[in-house]
């Protein structure tokens, strides 16, 4: 079922994410299932107790990339609507940092799309988190997005 992207939601926010409202927004009479992913702040990182996290983003590019993921979801899976929201700024333990919801006529497509969405977001959307501990802070180990191949221009020797 092809649905215009404009019924979807792709947002960066600085306030708590209203998961109930988002899940309700994507739900329609022709659907039979919604699958949601709630990613929240863990109280530890590599055996160290975490105090809190601070997220920052290349905001304009991040939203563009989130919309691109949405377009891929509609292409690859028989889904209806998507909501994808990431929170920025300081987040305490247990607070939701990312929420993704997908509706579909049947559950299989919604599960597959939701999994694809969070996996792709974590690899390609320019967002970074800094982890704060009792004794300091570190930027979380991240993933390097797939690098574009060199253009056909002659490369200067270096």
């Amino acid at each position: 079922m092809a649905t215009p992207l404009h019924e979807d939601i792709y947002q960066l926010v600085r306030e708590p994410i209203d998961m109930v409202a988002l899940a309700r927004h994507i739900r329609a009479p022709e659907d039979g299932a919604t699958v949601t992913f709630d990613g929240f702040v863990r109280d530890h990182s590599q055996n160290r107790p975490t105090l809190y996290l601070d997220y920052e983003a290349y905001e304009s590019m991040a939203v563009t990339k989130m919309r691109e993921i949405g377009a891929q979801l509609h292409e690859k899976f028989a889904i209806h609507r998507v909501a994808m929201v990431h929170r920025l700024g300081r987040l305490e333990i247990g607070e939701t940092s990312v929420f993704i919801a997908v509706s579909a006529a049947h559950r299989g497509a919604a599960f597959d799309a939701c999994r694809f969405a969070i996996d792709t977001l974590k690899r390609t959307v320019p967002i970074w988190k800094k982890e704060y501990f009792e004794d300091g802070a570190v930027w979380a180990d991240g993933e390097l997005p797939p690098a574009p191949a060199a253009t056909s221009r002659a490369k200067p020797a270096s």
Partner: protein
Amino acid sequence: MLLAPSRRAGYNSAVPPVSQSIRVKVLFFGRLKEITGRGEDAIELAEASTIEQLFSQCVTRLPELARYRSSLIASRNQEFAAWDTALHSGDEVAFLPPVSGG
């Protein structure tokens, strides 16, 4: 947006031609932002410079950046871009550390 040429004609006629150089906006994020002390800079480059050359210029100003080169990906105008991509005046380039959203 650039001002319409007609409005600036009076000024332009007095200014020497600047076609040999371009001006791009550079953005830094995550630990790079901390190292540079600012998230944004404007840099002047020779025409047809690449993203690699822009990074080299940033390293000239701040040698500490050099060791991050292999763990960065670049973007031009909000699309991931190869390091040999040629730049144009007004481009927005960002040097992105490994992403860790979610």
